């Protein structure tokens, strides 16, 4: 969502220090993407890990949304004035908020292992099961779009982090 602008590095220039907040966003969002990929692969993780991972992702997404709430407000205000790419990103993010929230909420309601392990009984029902399946499929389309719309920021920060690490490694030798 919110990104810190970073000019492209050249091989000759010393890479700029990457701000703590940018590093936090980069690694936190990276871990979230990996966790989401694992959680979606139910056949790989098994039901127990799938459910606990889903609950963890729910908490992490709430933190993700909180960390980028400034972007939500700023872009929503600008939306009427400016169109184009910002509007597309805003719409994708809104769709993702709706589908991901419904997917996690319905997942909790149809949970068979996680709720049982903490001593609660799940609410069942075909509505929640179908909603979980449908929204999960929608998120699989929206999550990569959400990530890819920020590919320039990801490449730029990734390059800076990597070159700084390389430099530190060379110095230590």
């Amino acid at each position, binding site marked *: 969502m919110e990104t810190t602008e970073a000019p492209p590095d050249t091989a000759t220039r010393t890479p700029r220090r990457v701000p703590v907040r940018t590093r936090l966003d980069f690694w936190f969002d990276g871990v979230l993407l990996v966790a989401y*990929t*694992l959680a*979606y*692969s*139910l*056949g*790989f*993780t*098994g*039901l*127990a*890990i799938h459910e606990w991972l889903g609950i963890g992702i729910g908490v992490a997404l*709430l933190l993700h*949304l*909180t*960390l980028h*709430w*400034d972007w939500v407000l700023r872009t929503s205000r600008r939306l009427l004035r400016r169109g184009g790419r910002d509007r597309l990103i805003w719409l994708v993010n809104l769709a993702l*908020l*709706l589908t991901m*929230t*419904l997917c996690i*909420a*319905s997942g909790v309601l149809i949970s*068979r*292992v996680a709720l*049982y392990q903490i001593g609660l*009984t*799940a*609410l*069942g*029902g*075909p*509505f*929640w*099961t*179908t*909603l979980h399946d*449908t929204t999960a499929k929608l998120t*699989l*389309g929206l*999550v*990569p*779009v959400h*990530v*890819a*719309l920020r*590919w*320039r920021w990801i490449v730029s920060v990734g390059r800076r982090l990597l070159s700084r690490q390389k430099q530190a490694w060379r110095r230590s030798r």
Partner: protein
Amino acid sequence: MRFARHLAAALLAVAAVVALGVAWAHSSEASWLAGPAAAHPARFVRAEQHIRIVRASLRDNGPGLSLASSADLIHTAVIEAAVMAVVVAASAARRHRRRARRAAA
């Protein structure tokens, strides 16, 4: 303080979406998603029936990773990578066109 305010706002947004979902589940439109069986979606599963389901699920799926089904993980990763590649390619092409137009002007 600012973080708490933003967290409260984010919580409110998420709660609103969940409330919409619950309202949908209880409306007559619920059958549109899950068929006529969804008329009473919020039924409690009987405790002993639920315990049987959980035990069977844990026995069948196991508590840990089932690396034999890594095809599932690869399938997810391939779909994500394909969608990302399409979006990045479209974005790069759009950028290239814009630059060319600017250079021509």
